[in-house]
């Protein structure tokens, strides 16, 4: 979609100009000193960074570091024994759980109470843990089904609401549609992507990651094996390159008309209609991710991104909060509407902005909030490819992942001692 690129470009071009002419609303506050932020480098963040920099003045420095290594930089800064070099960070939900569990987040409850009206803060933006505001969410994401509405209609196929139905559609399309040798495209790339596919399926199959109220692994049970078998059942309908296919590759396969369906990030939806990159403009429709088995809840997860402040901050919290709130104001959403699925209620979802609503309606759960989840996710990403290539059985691979996870959870202190009674 052209608009998206233009917005991102405009934001980039506007940044230095805006920095020179400080925004009067922010300028009137007479802020002094320095505020340093860190965030991920994607177009919506470039837009927000340019807004934060509008608060700059002769007496007030604002810098926003945009980096793909935001998780690592944030975790190091917030864990630092001295003062954090960043006064606030843009965190995803997974990073938030880690930081919260480390008790490294500064509660923003009082700041929110004091300035709530001025910045029109909405309750759904406030991420509260036991009523304390620990983060302020501004955008959402999820994975949902992309499918070629034209091909489904031509072959009389119904939109699949479960994975078995999806496999059936894939089988029929592969047989009847000459241009589509591999109807399904999904992010099966080794590591984070493949582990996320497993994470989507497991709860939908009634499985759970951990034993109740503990960090002991439970994902290697029968539901886990079933999830891996389901992933394996998809492979015949996917490009043999699937184990190296990340979001970019899947987006490309859909845009080029080589794939007819797949579960992919909602944030990629708008680009299906970008005439510069897509051969299928207007032909891809969206639906909730199918459930793993018929009648189950959607096999996907809900995500948010938000801002959080470190406990070891530099004591300029009021100024930091003003900058953050200016950055996330209602007009940030209005001006960058197409750049993200925003949390604020003035967001106007277009054709491609329906993902989170679809996932919500289909019962997709929130991304796991346990701080040790990322360790399990990491081990799954490393070992699952062996089960898909058939080198080892699903059960053996999951047992291996569980054992490796347990070792790392002991190392990180989430499981005490080296042995618990089984």
């Amino acid at each position, binding site marked *: 979609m052209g608009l998206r690129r233009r917005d991102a470009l405009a934001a980039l071009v506007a940044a230095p100009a805006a920095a020179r002419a400080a925004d009067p609303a922010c300028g009137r506050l007479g802020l002094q000193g320095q505020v340093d932020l860190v965030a991920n480098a994607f177009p919506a963040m470039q837009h927000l960074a340019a807004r934060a920099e509008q608060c700059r003045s002769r007496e007030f420095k604002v810098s926003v570091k945009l980096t793909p290594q935001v998780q690592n930089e944030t*975790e190091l800064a917030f864990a630092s024994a001295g003062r954090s070099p960043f006064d606030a960070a843009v965190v995803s939900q997974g990073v938030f*759980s880690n930081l*919260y*569990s*480390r*008790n490294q987040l500064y509660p923003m409850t009082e700041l929110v109470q004091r300035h709530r009206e001025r910045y029109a803060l909405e309750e759904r*933006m*406030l*991420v*509260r*843990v*036991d009523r304390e505001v620990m983060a302020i*969410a501004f955008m*959402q994401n999820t994975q949902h089904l992309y499918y070629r509405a034209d091909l489904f209609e031509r072959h009389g196929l119904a939109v699949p609401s479960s994975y078995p139905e999806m496999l059936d559609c894939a089988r029929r399309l592969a047989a009847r549609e000459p241009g589509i040798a*591999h109807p399904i495209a999904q992010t099966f*790339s*080794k*590591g984070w992507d493949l582990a996320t596919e497993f994470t989507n399926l497991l709860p939908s199959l009634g499985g759970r990651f951990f034993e*109740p*109220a503990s960090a002991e*692994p439970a994902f*290697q049970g*029968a539901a*886990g094996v079933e999830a891996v078998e389901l992933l394996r059942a998809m492979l015949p309908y996917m*490009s043999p*390159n699937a*184990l*190296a*296919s990340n979001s970019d*590759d899947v987006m*490309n396969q859909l845009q080029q008309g080589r794939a007819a369906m797949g579960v992919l990030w909602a944030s990629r939806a708008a680009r299906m209609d970008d005439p510069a990159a897509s051969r299928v403009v207007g032909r891809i429709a969206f639906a909730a991710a199918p459930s793993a088995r018929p009648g189950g809840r959607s096999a996907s997860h809900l995500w*948010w991104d938000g801002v959080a402040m470190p*406990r070891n901050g530099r004591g300029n919290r009021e100024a930091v909060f003003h900058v953050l709130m200016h950055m996330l104001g209602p007009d940030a959403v209005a001006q960058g509407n197409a750049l993200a699925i925003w949390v604020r209620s003035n967001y106007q979802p277009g054709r491609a902005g329906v993902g989170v609503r679809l996932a*919500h309606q289909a019962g997709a759960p929130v991304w796991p*909030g*346990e*701080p040790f989840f*990322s*360790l399990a996710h*990491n081990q799954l*990403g*490393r*070992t699952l*490819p*062996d089960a898909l290539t058939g080198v080892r*059985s699903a*059960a*053996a691979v*999951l*047992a291996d992942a*569980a*054992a490796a*996870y347990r*070792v*790392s959870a*002991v*190392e*990180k*202190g989430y499981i005490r001692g080296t042995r618990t009674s*089984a």
Partner: protein
Amino acid sequence: MKRASFLRFSAPSIALMLLLLALPMAMTLWLSVRTCTPELELVTVEVTGPFAPQQVITQRQTLDAAGRPVERCGFVGLEYYRKVLGLDRTAAREAADAAPAAKGTAAAAGDAEGTHNEFLSALGFTLFYTLTTTPFVLAGGLALALAMNGVSRRLRGAFIAASLLPFIITPVVGALAIKWLFRDNGLVSSLLAEVGVQIFWMAQAWSARLLIVVYGIWHVLPFAFIVFYAGLQGVPQDSLEAATLDGASRWQKLRYVTLPHLAPLVVFVTLIHLMDAYRVFEPVLVLTKGAFTGSVQYLTYTLLLEENNPYKASAAAVLTLLGIAVLLVPLLRRTWREQRGGPG
């Protein structure tokens, strides 16, 4: 007096090397034998936000009187080395016992198939990459340098600039370019498909490894080329003329005059490339994320950034360093002997 001026000249570089090389290495060693674990308590919290309210059972780090998170740090000796090398069977077995697999075949299957040793397979691919790229880089660089030496002076500038491009491009961008050529719908894949050859390059070990090796050669060849080309400019013309007068063929001149002159440069390029190749990282990250092609450096990266364990990652980094040292021993010994045996 002589000694004093020697010290004065070398002190800045020695200080810099201590600060930028020795100190980080010592710190990595120090980290690799330690670990820190936070003191955690089990808490149940209610989380509200953009989505429906949730009860989450989580662990939270306890705070000390000053409000700082409590952490216990200590010496663990070689524990992380054993774990990275896959020698720590007890921890793995205990973990496997404590995390029982699905009933039935699972545990038995796990035993029968053996546990997978990530470090050894990463080491295997790293050595494969290092040893396959080196001869191609040397031979290709030399061939290109000889060819360039024969090109007319007017064209040389443009040719040199063009052949240096792969070396100038950032590794991640170069690897991405290779990936885009070979993925589904990529230029090379599509052209091959046109003539009836359909290869899914990331789908099996041989082709994924081949792509990374091809990237490695493509990226480093210009470096070997430019070094050899510079060396060729210094080949003594009188020796070459004398050889011609003695009736030497082109091959004989190359074999007995040019190559011996370039020998130290061959050692130099090999040394640098072995060090570089052993740390192969970007193409693995970009092309395969380690599927079929895990490398030692990529393993360190995942330990640090994904497992988020700087102590274990330090152990892996020290092991990488040891690996490089072992690889370089023969070459360093040779250089050492030459330096001592040489004039002065």
